[in-house]
């Protein structure tokens, strides 16, 4: 098997069961103000399972999976110059619910350019493509769960939901963690954006604290003077028990 270069917990530490997901803080499947959810939400209740080996395991990634510029969106698609827009650094830690950093885990991110246009063949918004901006990147967290990347701040963009809906500036995040049941996709928003309270996708989150947890504060301490501003975004994945009692996961 392919192993990452970063230290991973041993099998005993890594095989504990995950805390159940608190679905009261996540958006439910059916959120009719976000119209596409109406036809794409299950009507039956989910079937709850206790963790087995299928749930506590998950894929691993190593530095050999990545390229040297994968976490630098200023340079990773530069053709004849650098992208236009507000230069920023996004950084933070991937933690679990016990507060421990999640080391060596894959974090992927994608976004529109400074004008709100995505480099995607299905995006027909009239704002132009930036020839020097791809809009995606990825990185592995370090031994403390820390990650960072450099990019330009994305613009707001309109979408066909209500007649006049605009997404706040946001960056999409995809995070793994050691167990496949920790798999999470979310979106990061920017402190102070006046579109935030108007967005039906953000409003799909029923818990005010959970919603605020997606808003990255400006972090002047991490800004690079005369170069880039910075925003801090920590991501919390499900925690896991470290002790197993009478219910053994494996048949031995």
């Amino acid at each position: 098997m392919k192993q990452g270069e970063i230290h991973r917990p041993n099998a005993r530490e890594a095989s504990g069961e995950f805390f159940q997901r608190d679905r009261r803080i996540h958006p439910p499947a059916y959120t009719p103000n976000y119209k596409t959810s109406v036809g794409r939400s299950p009507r039956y209740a989910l079937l709850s399972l206790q963790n087995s080996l299928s749930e506590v395991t998950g894929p691993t990634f190593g530095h050999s999976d990545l390229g040297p510029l994968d976490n630098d969106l200023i340079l990773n698609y530069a053709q004849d110059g650098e992208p236009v827009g507000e230069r920023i650094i996004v950084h933070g830690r991937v933690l679990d619910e016990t507060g421990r950093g999640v080391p060596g885990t894959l974090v992927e991110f994608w976004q529109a350019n400074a004008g709100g246009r995505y480099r995607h063949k299905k995006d027909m918004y009239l704002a132009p493509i930036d020839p020097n901006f791809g809009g995606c990147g990825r990185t592995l967290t370090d031994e403390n769960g820390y990650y960072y990347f450099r990019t330009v701040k994305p613009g707001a963009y309109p979408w066909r939901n209500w007649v006049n809906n605009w997404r706040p500036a946001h960056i999409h995040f995809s995070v793994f963690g050691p167990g496949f049941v920790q798999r999470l996709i979310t979106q990061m928003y920017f402190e102070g954006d006046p579109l935030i309270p108007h967005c039906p996708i953000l409003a799909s989150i029923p818990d005010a604290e959970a919603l605020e947890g997606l808003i990255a504060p400006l972090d002047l301490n991490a800004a690079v003077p005369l170069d880039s501003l910075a925003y801090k975004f920590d991501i919390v994945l499900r925690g896991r028990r470290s002790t197993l009692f009478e219910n053994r996961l494996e048949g031995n």
Partner: protein
Amino acid sequence: MPQPLNYLKETASQTAGPYVHIGLAPGAAGFKIFEQELGTDIAGPNAEGERIRVEGTVFDGAGAPVKDVLIEVWQANAAGIYPSPADLRADQVEEGFRGWGRIISDFDTGLFSFDTVKPGGIAGRNSRRMAPHLNLWIVARGINIGLNTRMYFDDEAEANAKDPVLNLIEQANRRGTLIATREMRDGKPVYRFDIRLQGEGETVFLDI
């Protein structure tokens, strides 16, 4: 007041949106940026076991194909071992077997397909063996939090009948929504697995 527990809360999920391909499969979005995209080869050339193809379509509540869906697969090898530090036998997994893949549907038809090897049965909780299965995670525009399900194999009827997860589904007539149908095409086994997000024949989704 008792002591505070001080657990953090999980970060809330948000939809992957219609342009999920930019980040997770940029080639499909229409541009090349990474030296290698991840998740394109689940089993690798050294994997033992039967080579299979899985095909299907994800349907919405109106019965229309979902053409912008992204599915991730997580599976054991033919011996029923996961290539993960949490599996005590992980060092026995073949070199190059990732067990994980990322699949997107065709933008025009909604059909998805992938090649892998058929997994073995897996040690379940409390000595109950689980039938061979793939773990699937489904994200798309309109899906606020990724949907988990499992795909089982219709030529494993005996193992499926004893599977602890299939047997948890109270309405026995819904168990079949997790079982893929085998056919042979050009001498190669192809399993058909359609996923219905809502309505008649709704697939069983899991809270895991």
